């Protein structure tokens, strides 16, 4: 029964991710006085891409072809770790945050390799940028995550969230720092403004789009879907760690339904905030990204410090 719910949760996650992307796009269009495409547009795009014949360069190796599958499946395994609507699941108990970060790094590794594989200028450029950013984002992310795990005395995400749920409302200064750090890391990792612009194609400043420039057809669909999953993953992470209220603590149908509504509401609000910030801020120069991420690291560090100094029992 539990296993069934776990599988259901993962499937739910996978199927909701394009909807979140659609909602985000809709919010942005609304804020920028443009006519928004339908909320279901990402689904249509994915469907259309799967019907198309993928074009593969003659210089591409086998790696180029299997990379999308590896990326997609690694991302899917990563999301099984994350509690979406309930915490009490068998999959969650066996995997913790470091594994989550590892899976994401694994997916990124193959994405970078695929970008390099064909040997175009854009692909290599995007790959090197991606690695630069991730090498700075990961310490910041771990710093933020450790702040949270130290409060719960476990690196298991599920147990940590359970701990926070049971404790009730406690305002911790360290969480404020960790929250801001995680938001900054999420922006960098999912390639949103001001680090990268997801709406560009063929621009010298692009990062994520540069790597997947050579992909088409179902390969592109998988990669797009994986990046939508990643966006949602970070959203759920932020929503469920810092605002876990509403998650199902028992496995009754009403509790699960309520939890589903709660997480959709939380993600909806986060998407509005993201759209707002993307509308207000301009993309920054690539060389300033390191300042941005070192600020994120600093916040994570401050969170950690304030946890150790302020909140740990003396």
């Amino acid at each position: 029964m539990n296993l069934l719910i776990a599988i259901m949760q993962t499937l739910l996650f996978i199927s909701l991710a394009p909807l979140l992307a659609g909602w985000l796009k809709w919010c942005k269009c609304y804020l920028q006085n443009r006519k928004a495409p339908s909320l279901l547009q990402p689904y249509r795009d994915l469907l259309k891409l799967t019907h198309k014949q993928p074009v593969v360069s003659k210089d591409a190796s086998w790696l180029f072809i299997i990379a999308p599958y590896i990326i997609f499946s690694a991302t899917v395994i990563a999301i099984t770790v994350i509690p979406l609507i309930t915490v009490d699941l068998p999959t969650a108990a066996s995997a913790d945050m470091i594994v989550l970060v590892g899976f994401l790094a694994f997916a990124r590794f193959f994405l970078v390799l695929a970008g390099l594989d064909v040997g175009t200028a854009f692909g290599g450029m995007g790959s090197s940028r991606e690695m630069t950013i991730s090498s700075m984002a990961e310490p910041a992310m771990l710093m933020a995550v450790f702040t949270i795990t130290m409060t719960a005395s476990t690196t298991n995400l599920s147990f940590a969230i359970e701990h926070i749920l049971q404790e009730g409302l406690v305002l911790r200064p360290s969480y404020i720092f960790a929250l801001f750090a995680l938001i900054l890391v999420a922006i960098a990792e999912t390639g949103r403004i001001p680090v990268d612009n997801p709406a560009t194609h063929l621009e010298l400043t692009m990062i994520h789009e540069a790597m997947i420039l050579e992909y088409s057809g179902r390969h592109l669909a998988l990669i797009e879907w994986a990046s939508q999953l990643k966006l949602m993953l970070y959203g759920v992470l932020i929503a469920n760690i810092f605002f876990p209220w509403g998650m199902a603590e028992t496995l009754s149908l009403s509790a699960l339904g309520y939890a589903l509504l709660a997480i959709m509401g939380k993600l909806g609000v986060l998407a509005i905030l993201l759209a707002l910030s993307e509308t207000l801020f301009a993309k920054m120069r690539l060389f300033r990204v390191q300042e941005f991420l070192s600020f994120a690291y600093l916040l994570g560090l401050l969170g950690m410090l304030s946890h150790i100094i302020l909140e740990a029992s003396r």
Partner: protein
Amino acid sequence: MDIENLDHYAQLILSLAALVTLTSFIMLAQGRLLRLVFIFALQGFLLVLATAIAAYSFNNPHLYISAAITMALKVLFIPWMLRRHILKLEMHRDVEALSNKTAIMMGGASLVVFSYYVLHPIMQDASMILLNALSLSLAVILLGMLLMISHHQAIAHVVGFMSIENGLFFAATVSTNGMPMVVELGVAFDVLVAAVLFGIFFLHINSSIDSLDVDKMNRLNEVDQ
């Protein structure tokens, strides 16, 4: 004592203290003057919130007056004055090139640790909220100084100066429920006069060196020219 055992007001005050420190950090990295002034006003507002919550939870009406004074001075008057000067002197488009922001930020983080280090031994028997609030306000004071060191614009110096005052005010509010009224009014008066004098100085400096970059004021020094 753990943070879970505190009531929500105390937790809220602590969180606001953390946010005030955060605004200090953001100011440290800010090269645009208008944004700097806006964040300064935000810091003042967080301070007002913290004071009002402290007034409510400690049931101390005297703190409401302090909150009102801070609101009037640090959130409204001083930011308004600075903004007016920035616009009048047409400095709102200038971006100050800050050298090595990352090092400054890390320096700031070590100042936070330092202020805990300074105050930790004396607060062993004190409540947690007090230790934190005092240490964080000392950190805000030191970060204000760092802001003054790392920026060249006179206006940024004034913002740093005033954020030092913010730190002091926060320390007084949380550790002792505010200073005696006469002292608080006196300090507010001093801040008001200082703000007006700073305004006068902007005009003088601008007319004497044709810029507000205090690094250009280097006529007086110990070394023979």
